């Protein structure tokens, strides 16, 4: 938990926002909130890059933000860009230009981190979230650039992703379509988004609640002025039918909207209605969390997610099932890996976060079989590095993927290129974790669950695995023999196994 003054800048697709906050004990007190509209997304979503004119305007806004930070004598700040910058081809130039001319160091928020922060914020903000999650909940954060969807049920994340269906993006995409039928294009496109997401979820999994969030919510609240914490589908649909054929000036005049709000209203309504149809619910609940404030709370440590580890684990098990892993074997390898990790702690000197990486790698260690039974290590690596687990940083994903790759690679297999990007410390970590994983996997190599348990006897010059087995484990012993050399090369001490057949 930080304490003192802190600044958060969010460079969104439609506006730049800054929060100056004070962290004290368990509180985040908002001191000042600035918002400057600048629709970077108009460039990014229509031409793929940010125009020089907008680069300069952005720099000017950020120079002003920098001055404000200086007034408060704040050095501790984070300036985070979302899709408007993240997806621009010239994002590196943009970040460098802003750094040189304003002194503000920009960071690009990874989509998986963005969706996770928004999800955690909604969890803490929306009453009865846990209850709704038991029935299955879609949390949709509809922003200008993207729709971030997090679909959870119980402890399990069924889907999590950032989809290019933000309201400003839709608007730009169909700007050439006459406004009288533009809503049809929005409807078709959003319907396509729902189909895409539905296709990735097991048809048997039903979700029945919708929670909305994001920059669109303020607009919804102003238009619908709900008494409680939800807006009904009926209200939404009636309103949509009325306004979907309005021109932008009509929206501005009749509904008293700002120019930027009028641009995104119809696609936003279309998105909510389609999501309501997907969940078959009659209303959607909303999170009033403001993203920059959420960011401040998250990075200050106030926003907590006590169920994180459990949720990640169940989500990863779901992924292992999706790729048709042998689940009893997976569970055994997880148990054996973690037991080895704990028993060998004096030898490996790894940390608790490394333990979590090992656990994840053990759960996912054979997903690559789904693609083909050859090049399994590479296939698993490919699948894992493409995952977007909410709350995982890209580095975590990379370490898990490389641990699995290193564990399964065969002599002569080439190193995947990402190995070169690791520091020496990270490479050592991968070697240690993959060696533990390989040892655990050897103990159930035949996937027979023959070895029921083991103890680890650490002697001065040797480690002995004392395994209890229901039958002589030929396959396991052969696999164990094959990885002994790797173990001594990794930990500097030989390892051997003693299998004792136990009879019931």
């Amino acid at each position, binding site marked *: 938990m930080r304490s003192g003054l802190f600044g958060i800048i969010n460079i969104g697709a439609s506006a730049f926002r800054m929060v100056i906050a004070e962290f004290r004990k368990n509180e985040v007190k908002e001191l000042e909130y600035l918002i400057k509209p600048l629709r970077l997304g108009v460039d990014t979503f229509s031409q793929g890059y940010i125009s020089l004119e907008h680069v300069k305007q952005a720099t000017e806004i950020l120079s002003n933000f920098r001055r404000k930070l200086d007034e408060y004598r704040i050095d501790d700040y984070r300036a985070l860009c979302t899709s408007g910058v993240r997806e621009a081809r010239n994002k590196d130039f943009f970040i460098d230009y802003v750094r040189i001319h304003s002194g503000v160091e920009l960071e690009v928020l990874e989509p998986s981190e963005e969706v996770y922060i928004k999800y955690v914020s909604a969890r803490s903000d929306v009453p009865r979230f846990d209850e709704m999650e038991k029935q299955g909940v879609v949390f949709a954060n509809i922003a200008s650039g993207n729709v971030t969807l997090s679909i959870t049920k119980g402890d399990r994340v069924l889907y999590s992703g950032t989809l290019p269906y933000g309201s400003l993006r839709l608007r730009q995409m169909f700007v050439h*379509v006459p406004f009288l039928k533009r809503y049809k294009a929005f409807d*078709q496109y959003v319907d396509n988004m729902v189909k895409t997401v539905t296709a*990735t979820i097991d048809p048997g999994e039903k979700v029945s609640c919708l929670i909305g969030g994001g920059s669109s919510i303020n607009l919804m609240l102003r238009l619908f002025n709900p008494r409680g914490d939800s807006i009904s589908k009926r209200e939404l649909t009636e309103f949509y039918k009325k306004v979907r054929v309005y021109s932008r000036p009509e929206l501005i005049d009749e509904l008293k909207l700002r120019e930027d709000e009028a641009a995104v209203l119809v696609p936003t309504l279309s998105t909510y209605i389609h999501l309501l149809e997907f969940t078959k619910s009659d209303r959607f609940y909303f999170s009033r969390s403001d993203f920059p404030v959420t960011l401040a709370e998250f990075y200050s440590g106030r926003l907590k997610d006590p169920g994180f580890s459990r949720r990640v684990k169940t989500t990863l098990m779901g992924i292992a099932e999706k790729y048709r892993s042998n689940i009893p074997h997976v569970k055994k390898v997880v148990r054996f890996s973690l037991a080895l990790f704990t028993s060998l702690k004096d030898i490996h000197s790894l940390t608790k976060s490394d333990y979590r990486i090992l656990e994840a790698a053990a759960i996912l260690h054979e997903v690559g079989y789904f693609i*083909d039974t050859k090049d399994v290590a590479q296939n698993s690596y490919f*699948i894992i590095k493409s995952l977007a687990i909410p709350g995982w940083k890209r580095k975590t994903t990379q370490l898990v993927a490389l641990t699995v790759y290193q564990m399964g690679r065969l002599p002569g297999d080439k190193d995947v290129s990402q190995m070169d990007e690791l520091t020496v410390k990270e490479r050592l970590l991968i070697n240690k974790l993959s060696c533990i994983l390989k040892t655990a996997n050897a103990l159930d190599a*035949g996937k*027979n669950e023959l070895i029921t348990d083991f103890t680890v006897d650490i002697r001065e010059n040797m480690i002995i695995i004392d395994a209890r087995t229901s*039958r002589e484990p030929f396959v396991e012993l052969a696999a164990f023999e094959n990885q002994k050399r790797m173990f001594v090369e990794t930990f500097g001490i030989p390892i051997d196994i003693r299998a004792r057949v136990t009879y019931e």
Partner: protein
Amino acid sequence: MDNPNPVIAVIDIGSNSIRLQISKVLDRTYKVIDEYKETVRIGDNVYRTGEFSPAAADTITSVLSNMKTMMDSARVEKYRAVATASFREASNAGEVAGIVKDKTGLDIEIISGVEEARLMYLAASSYFQLSEGNTLLVDMGGGSTEFSCAAYGELKFSESTPLGCSKLTYEFFKNDPVKAEEVKKLKSHIKKSTGGFLPLYGVDRLVCSGGTLNNLSFIYNKRNNLSDSAVKFVDSIFTKHFINEITGKSVAERLKIPGLEPARADIILSAAILVQTLMKRYRLEGFYTLSGGLRGGLTIDLINKMGMELLFQGGSHVDVRYSRLIETGKKYCFEEGHALQVTKLAEKIFEDLRSALNLSPGDWAILEAAGLLHDVGQYIAYSRHHKHSYYLIMNTELAGYSEREIELIANVARYHRRAMPKNDHANFMRLSPQDRELTAKLAAILRIADGLDRSHGSFVKDVRAEVKAGAIEFSVTSNADITMEQSGFEKKKDLLGALTGKEIILI
């Protein structure tokens, strides 16, 4: 059987190895979920003494016992364990099978050479369009070799011969290194033994299976930096040179050959000679190897016996390659309606632009496969799914396509959206300059076809493309609202415009 996706297993007890393959039956297809192999050489003693030694019997029981545990762990509902030549020839085969039954509960079925050939035919029919031309199928084991001939999709004959590579090695190669005289005698024996039943001419394709011939094709692929796959092509020039290369080498010297399995160092020569004799007889440029032939055939047969027919089955009119593409799409849960619609539109555009883009009719096969599989990457993740499609196509067995064709299909699918092909794209630069040009042209068509089904609603019934002086004009037939498709067209016409320098218009 109530379970719509039962897990099944097949065990192939050969002379050199015992192999287990566990599969999950899916919607008119199946997916191998586990494989296990033990190289045992149980036939060696049989071909010397006529029976299994006690040690061989122990090995068989122990390996099968492990396999049974793996099957139980995978919750196998049905299995078939078959034994081939070594069991057929061993005088104590029944006794060994009885011991196995007692100790493991597994029933071993000793199948005839003709049944082996039929199973091999089944396996080959899932990879090759056997309805085209005459195909000679050769399944070479350690103790016997089964020959069968398929003429235009019909199995004409099957013959089991005692021409297994281990058996031939013991009978003809007494010296190490082998003498030229011994090679000559073997060639003459093969010609004599096969002359009575093999056709004199008219074989268009030679498809071989068996571990030793597969090892030969593995060596070929390794030397030519080709990736490993279930179906491999080996040219006859290589085989001829390989025979010359190893004839003068002792078995110990052969062990240094990269890719050669040590357990096959002695028997690979007789296998290579047999296949070379056949290629010479039919003046073939090479032969195909099919790995897992017997296991594949057994699995298909077992599924058929459960009352299910696989996608590629259903008569000679079924296009095997197409069926396997659909199977691959289903494996990755593709949206079949969209994939078929995009492929249909791509075909029409391909025909209209073929001459303007200087494409050959054969290029359609690449575009067709890319059209069907362009979105499979969505199974991994929506984001960057075009790149995931590239990876999956490159790494999934696509039956009936050469390595070059698979790489082309993967690249065309990769460029169905987002960036156009660029010289700093590693996947693109791996292609020859001619194939890069072909990729760009086919991807240009695929992008437009995909754009014209932007809503995934199959709203466009027909499309025509007409090349004019400064433009290519597209017209579509539809009775639905195609706002999305029009927008998709505008977004995806970029590559065709860049390639042709013409304006691309939807009228």
